């Protein structure tokens, strides 16, 4: 079991005085090597799930386990990526990729070697000495993925990493991410509001309700080509899955 949420509830204190329950009684498991997406309306606590997995804050109730150990702080098993690439603008691409290794006592030469290997995996050869501003948005996200993979995490958390990109770049990047992640054999949790993206990239989809977020449905995506969303995209079943998600999120009622 790579990741497990056991009856997790998270309550935030607010300035107004009434505490805000972001997620309530969330339980799910993610197997090793599995790609699971979490979809839900905005403000349903998707990112709260991610932050608790990363150990940035603790659940108010219940517990989060990564590889069987309780998460009680930031730890080396989890790598996360956001919509923002969070590359350090004052560092070159290669030294950005090394960033996560620096606080782990990895010797300089090994850091560089691992960073170069990840640079290759993410198809960024030749961009080592460039600065982030010299790269396009899609390339920057790939550099961020390389940085995430460089620490060799057991779980990769992706918080809407494609949402700031144009449609074409998005598709190419989804494909390249899916491939790279499948090759690395990493367990992945993708937070997204893009229903098609969830269907194209996942083994399983968890649907969250509106705040306080609870899991209202779990959909197993029984389609081939998980590591090639571009191929999966043309399968006719994709729209059925999307329609299912649509229904669970009651989007039609809301539109009416």
């Amino acid at each position, binding site marked *: 079991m790579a990741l497990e949420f056991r009856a997790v509830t998270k309550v935030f204190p607010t300035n107004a005085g009434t505490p805000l329950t972001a997620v309530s009684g969330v339980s799910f498991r993610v197997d090793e090597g599995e790609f699971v997406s979490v979809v839900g309306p905005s403000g349903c606590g998707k990112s709260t799930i991610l932050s608790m997995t990363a150990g940035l804050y603790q659940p108010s109730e219940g517990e989060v386990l990564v590889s069987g150990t309780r998460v009680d702080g930031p730890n080396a098993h989890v790598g996360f990526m956001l919509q923002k690439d*969070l590359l350090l603008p*004052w*560092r070159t691409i290669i030294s950005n990729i090394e960033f996560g290794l620096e606080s782990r006592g990895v010797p300089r030469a090994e850091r560089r070697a691992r960073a170069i290997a990840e640079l290759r995996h993410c198809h960024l050869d030749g*961009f080592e000495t460039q600065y982030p501003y010299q790269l396009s948005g*899609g*390339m920057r996200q790939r550099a961020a993925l390389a940085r995430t993979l460089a620490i060799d995490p057991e779980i990769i958390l992706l918080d809407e990493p494609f949402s700031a990109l144009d449609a074409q770049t998005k598709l190419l990047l989804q494909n390249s991410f899916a491939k790279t992640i499948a090759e690395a054999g990493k367990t992945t949790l993708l937070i997204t509001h893009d229903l098609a993206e969830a269907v194209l990239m996942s083994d399983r989809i968890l649907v969250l309700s509106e705040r306080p977020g609870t899991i209202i449905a779990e959909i197993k995506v029984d389609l081939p080509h998980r590591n090639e969303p571009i191929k999966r995209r043309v399968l006719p079943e994709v729209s059925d899955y999307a329609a299912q998600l649509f229904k669970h999120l009651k989007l039609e009622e809301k539109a009416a």
Partner: protein
Amino acid sequence: MTDATATQAGAKAPAVTRKPANPGGPRMDHRLKTTVASLGLLALVLLAWQYLPTALDVPKYIIPTLTDCLFELKRMWLYDGLTAHTLSTALYTLLGFAIGSLLGATLGYLLGMSAFWEKVLSPYILALQIAPKVAFAPLFIMWFGYNSVPKLLVTVLIVFFPVLVNVLQAMRTVDRDLINLARAYSLSRLGIFWKIEMPSTLPNLMAGLRIASTLAVIGVTVGELVGGNTGLGYLISYGGGQANAAMVFNAIVLLTVIGFVLYSALVRIEDRVLHYLPKAHG
């Protein structure tokens, strides 16, 4: 966005070039034009300065002409120890700037790391920031006497605040997600400071230093005007007492030069240090 956006996100993306490869071209012409216009304007002002006062019968002790000033400059250099006065002012400007900005930056970073102390101290910082610092000069002279301490203190005080405020402001607005990323990578508090906060705040620190450099000259000048017998500020008050307007003019020009040199040096350093920021074309 830079021109890099144009590159495809595909695997075979071509290398992005550092700068657009058009040396010369319309931009060069444009720069030449502005330089010529700038110099032309300077020549015009200098000519007006030389001939207008005499033409309008303005006496020399009100507005000396350009040549009056140049003759006076030579006289000051030969008989009034102008070099020593100028060097003294330059030295104290630099010293006050260095001490003041070091203190301002240090306190800015310390307060930036402690929300509690920032809240406790911020009303007093605001009050001190609003208080006219140059007005402290007579007090400092009463306390420390007619030596170089008062002018140094005024300079330090005047330089201190813009640096402090800029650093503090920048520390407050460091990207929380970057800090979370560093935390997720298990960086220590000190590690987060050196690897995230310090570099993130560098642009604001540099902006603060630039403002401070122009104020440093004011601090020293006021210090020298109020007390003491060295420096360009002293020459201003001496020249003013003797109705020697040319002397005052010269001292002002030299003070401006000192400030300008310091400012340009900082701009140079800033360009070096912040080379990773995309430059606005212009």
